[in-house]
């Protein structure tokens, strides 16, 4: 429902005519009303007459906040997505009654779209052209931009479905504009026009060693796979990955970097992780998380007299840095949580985590204790980023309802 308030500093006399657009779009929330003043207007204040005045009203509900998440680990089913949607409450489900192979997830507040749905080439097409899914040539950025823009303005779209099993493009599904739209996939920040639509962007940067360890865990149980095949697959995709995906890192507002631990010498199991949350400074509606003293450099081992941790323990680091020419703050955690009290202890020492109550981060992690990474920096930082996004969303919606529109003043 649109609410329009018009403020004018001068009254319109009867020579003004009002014309409204005859064409209305389905679900289009913006209506432009154009006033033409035809008669001669004298103004005591001496300011010039305004001529055609355009007053735009926007409906109160076209406030879709768009988040971009770059990740190599498939779409909409990633742990990060599950944690994020959980912060907003409710479980994210595939659209009911639609294509069972849909990649989309919908919850009360959020809709997660998998960017693979914008493949312009299906599996056969890519084979013919000799391009991987990582290659921009396999993706329709025009359509991606058009639809993300539409959803952001409150217009529903018919989005294609890319079926990862058959490798074909299935008939489209209707996506209604949500409060929060998350676009997840390989190229959320590749195209500049799409990048400009994002209110916040995250890049999940998994180091090669950890990627290898994770893919071994994922694939070794499969009959067709061996250590060699897993390695070969990673190696073969690396050139395209570095050229097209990794290059998006520099645009992200937050990067979650996952590296092997430094606490255990020569560890190659990838079970204990060193995770760095790299947060850009100066991003609107986003204030980086910090430890103890903002802008300073801190090295912190919480385990000691007050807190006993088991091997290999936990180590934190916080400090300012530059990343691809940008000022950033980095919060780093190496090691893993063993017990509830370790979690709550750490949480109580972090600042700017945008929780609504004490212990919210711990609660979120416990709620999904079975998700991978719940005992280390990946789970911790993904949850914190989820809370920062909630905070960002609330700030954006608060500012939008406060200032509905402004009339042009003569």
């Amino acid at each position: 429902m649109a609410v329009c308030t018009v403020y004018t500093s001068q009254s319109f006399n009867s020579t003004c005519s009002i014309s409204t657009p005859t064409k209305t779009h389905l679900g289009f929330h913006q209506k432009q009303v154009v006033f033409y003043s035809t008669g001669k207007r004298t103004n005591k204040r001496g300011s010039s007459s305004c001529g055609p005045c355009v007053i735009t009203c926007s409906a109160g509900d076209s406030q879709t906040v768009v988040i971009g998440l770059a990740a190599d680990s498939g779409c909409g089913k990633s742990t990060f997505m599950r944690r994020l949607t959980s912060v907003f409450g409710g479980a994210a489900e595939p659209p009911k009654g639609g294509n069972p192979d849909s990649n989309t997830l919908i919850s009360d507040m959020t809709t997660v779209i998998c960017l693979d749905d914008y493949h312009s080439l299906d599996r056969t097409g890519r084979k013919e052209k000799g391009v991987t899914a990582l290659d921009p040539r396999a993706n329709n950025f025009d359509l991606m931009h058009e639809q993300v823009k539409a959803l952001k303005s409150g217009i529903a779209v018919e989005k294609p479905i890319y079926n990862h099993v058959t490798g074909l493009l299935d008939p489209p599904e209707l996506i209604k504009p949500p409060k929060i739209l998350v676009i997840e996939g390989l190229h959320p920040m590749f195209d500049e026009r799409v990048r400009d639509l994002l209110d916040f962007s995250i890049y999940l940067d998994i180091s090669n060693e950890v990627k290898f360890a994770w893919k071994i865990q994922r694939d070794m149980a499969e009959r067709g796979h061996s250590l060699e095949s897993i390695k070969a697959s990673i190696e073969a995709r690396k050139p395209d990955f570095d050229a097209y995906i990794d290059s998006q890192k520099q645009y992200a507002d937050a990067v979650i970097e996952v590296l092997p631990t430094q606490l255990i010498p020569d560890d190659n199991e990838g079970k204990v992780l060193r995770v760095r949350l790299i947060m850009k400074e100066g991003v609107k509606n986003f204030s980086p998380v910090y430890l103890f003293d903002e802008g300073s450099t801190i090295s912190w081992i919480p385990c000691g007299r007050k807190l006993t941790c088991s091997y290999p323990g936990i180590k934190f680091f916080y400090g300012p840095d530059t990343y691809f020419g940008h000022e950033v703050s980095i919060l780093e955690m190496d090691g893993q949580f063993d017990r509830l009290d370790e979690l709550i202890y750490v949480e109580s020492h972090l600042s700017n985590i945008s929780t609504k109550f004490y212990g919210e981060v711990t609660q979120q992690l416990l709620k999904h204790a079975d998700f991978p990474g719940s005992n280390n920096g990946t789970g911790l930082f993904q949850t914190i980023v989820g809370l920062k996004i909630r905070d960002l969303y609330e700030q954006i919606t608060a500012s939008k309802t406060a200032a509905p529109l402004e009339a042009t003043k003569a």
Partner: protein
Amino acid sequence: MASLTFHSLTGTVEKIPTSSFCSNPRISATFHCKNKGEKRVSRMTLKAMGGAAKYKGTQMREKQLTEMIEKKVTEAKEVCKGDETSDECKVAWDEVEEISQAKADLRIKLEIEKKDPLESFCQENPETEECRIYED
């Protein structure tokens, strides 16, 4: 891999009940089946190991993906023999990655989320082939 074993004591159950007749046999150990006026009572024991596919369609898909992985790995090795840096080689291993991830996603869905992807579809279409309750 999950297996479901149904032991019928009385032997009167000839047809595996569909969801439209009976409460979910996976949840209850005993159930009563009304089939066109006849009352059949069977005791079913369930032995499910790990995340189980509930519907036949999902079970078949799991099998299909496993076979595809094997096939695509073999293909990739073949294609890359000539030139490891060729486009064909890249694409072949990319396909292996795509299918491996699809299989892993299915596994996560079944084992961690404990949901069969066909659940919603099968509620609407219980009589289709793929919505038959998976039996051994």
